[in-house]
C-alpha cells in the first residue's frame, strides 16, 4: 500500500517524507503506512503538511482539526513517536527528514489519524468540571463570587486545558489500565478543588479515591512533558493527592 509521490513543480522549498498511518477498523486487519514527499518551509506545521497531502495526493486521509492555533485541541496525534498537536508542531523543529504521524495511543481509532474522544469527555464529566455550590451569581440580585489574584493563581494554570488528550496518550498507566481515570480528568479535579469559589471538594475527592483513580498515578510525569498548554497535570495530581494524604488543607 506504500506510495511515494512528489510535488515536482515546487523547487523553492525543502521536502520531507511524510509517513501517514492508515487504518480503518471496519475494513483493515492491521495498520499500514503511506509515504508522501511534501515540500515545507521553516514555518510549515505538520497539520499543513497533512492537509497538503489531502489536497494534492489523497483526500481520503482522515484527520480531525479545526482552529489551527492550538486552541481547540482537535489535532492531537503521535508525531515521530511522541504525542503532539499537529498544528503546534513545526516540521523544521522535528529535525528529521522523515515525519511519521500516527493516531494517539490509548484512544480507539475512528479512521487513520482520527480517534474517539468519548471516554476522555466521560471521565472529564465524571469529576464534575464546574463550580459545585448551592447558590449562583447568575441571578440578577446575586453578588459576584469574588476571588483574590492569589486565589486565582492556585488554579488558573489548570484552566488552560484544551482537552486534546495528549496527556492521556503519553501516560504509562493509561497504556495498560482501561479503567484509569487519566491525567486530564485528575488535573481538572485539582483545578476545581483548588478554586476558592468551589464547595464540592469532598465529593470530588470521593470520586477519584478509587482503585482506578488517583492512586494509579505513579508520577512518571510524561503527561506534563507533552502538554501543549503548560498545564502540568503531574503537578496537579500530586497536589491533589497531597489533599487526600493530609499534606495540604
Amino acid at each position: 500500500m506504500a506510495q511515494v509521490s512528489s510535488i515536482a513543480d515546487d523547487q523553492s522549498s525543502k521536502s520531507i517524507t511524510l509517513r501517514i498511518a492508515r487504518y480503518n477498523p471496519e475494513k483493515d486487519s492491521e495498520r499500514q503506512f503511506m509515504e508522501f514527499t511534501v515540500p515545507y518551509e521553516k514555518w510549515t506545521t505538520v497539520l499543513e503538511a497533512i492537509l497538503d497531502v489531502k489536497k494534492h495526493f489523497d483526500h481520503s486521509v482522515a484527520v480531525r482539526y479545526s482552529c489551527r492555533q492550538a486552541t481547540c485541541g482537535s489535532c492531537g496525534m503521535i508525531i515521530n513517536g511522541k504525542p503532539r498537536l499537529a498544528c503546534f508542531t513545526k516540521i523544521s523543529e522535528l529535525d528529521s527528514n522523515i515525519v511519521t504521524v500516527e493516531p494517539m495511543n490509548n484512544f480507539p481509532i475512528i479512521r487513520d489519524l482520527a480517534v474517539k474522544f468519548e471516554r476522555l469527555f466521560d471521565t472529564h464529566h465524571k469529576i464534575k468540571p464546574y463550580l459545585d455550590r448551592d447558590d449562583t451569581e447568575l441571578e440578577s440580585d446575586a453578588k459576584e463570587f469574588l476571588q483574590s489574584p492569589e486565589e486565582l493563581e492556585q488554579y488558573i494554570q489548570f484552566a488552560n486545558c484544551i482537552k486534546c488528550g495528549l496527556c492521556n496518550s503519553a501516560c504509562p498507566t493509561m497504556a495498560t489500565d482501561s479503567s484509569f481515570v487519566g491525567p486530564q480528568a485528575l488535573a481538572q479535579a485539582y483545578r476545581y478543588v483548588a478554586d476558592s469559589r468551589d464547595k464540592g471538594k469532598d465529593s470530588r475527592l470521593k470520586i477519584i479515591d478509587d482503585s482506578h483513580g488517583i492512586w494509579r498515578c505513579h508520577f512518571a510525569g510524561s503527561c506534563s512533558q507533552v502538554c501543549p498548554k503548560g498545564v502540568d497535570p503531574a503537578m496537579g495530581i500530586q497536589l491533589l493527592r497531597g489533599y487526600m494524604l493530609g499534606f495540604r488543607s
Partner: protein
Amino acid sequence: MTQDEHKEGFKGMANPSRYGIERVAYWLMRLSGLGLLAYFIGHIYETSNILRGRVGWNEFLELTQTTEGHIVLAIVIAMCVFHTVNGIRVMLGHGGVGVGKPARPDYPYDPASQNYRHKIGIYSAIILAAIAMMYGLAVMFGE
C-alpha cells in the same frame, strides 16, 4: 489489549526512551520492584533450607559464593538502593512536596513538577545504586 481500544500496552508502558529521565526512573522503579520481589521469594526459599540442617544450609549458601551468585547479589544491592532512594523522592512527590507551585505558565512551558530537585533525586538514586553495587562487588570479589 484489543485493537479497538488502541492501548499502547506493556510495550509502550515499559519504553523508557521518549519522555526524559523521569520516565526512565518510572521504568527502573518498576523493574527494581519486580526484581526485589523475585529476590524476596528466592530469599524465603533459601532461608527455608535451614530446615535441612547445618549441612543443607551450608550447601545452599555455597550458591551465593559463586561468581554468578556475587553478580546477582550486587544487582540486588543496586536495586535495593535505587528503589529506596527513588521511593523516598516519589513518596514526597505524591504528597505534593517539591513539585512546584501553580502559576501562569510561560512558553515553552517547562513543567514545574519536573524540576531540578526531582532530577537531582533521580540521578542521586542512580549514582548511589551504582556506588553501592561497586562496593558490594569489591567486598564480594575481594575476599
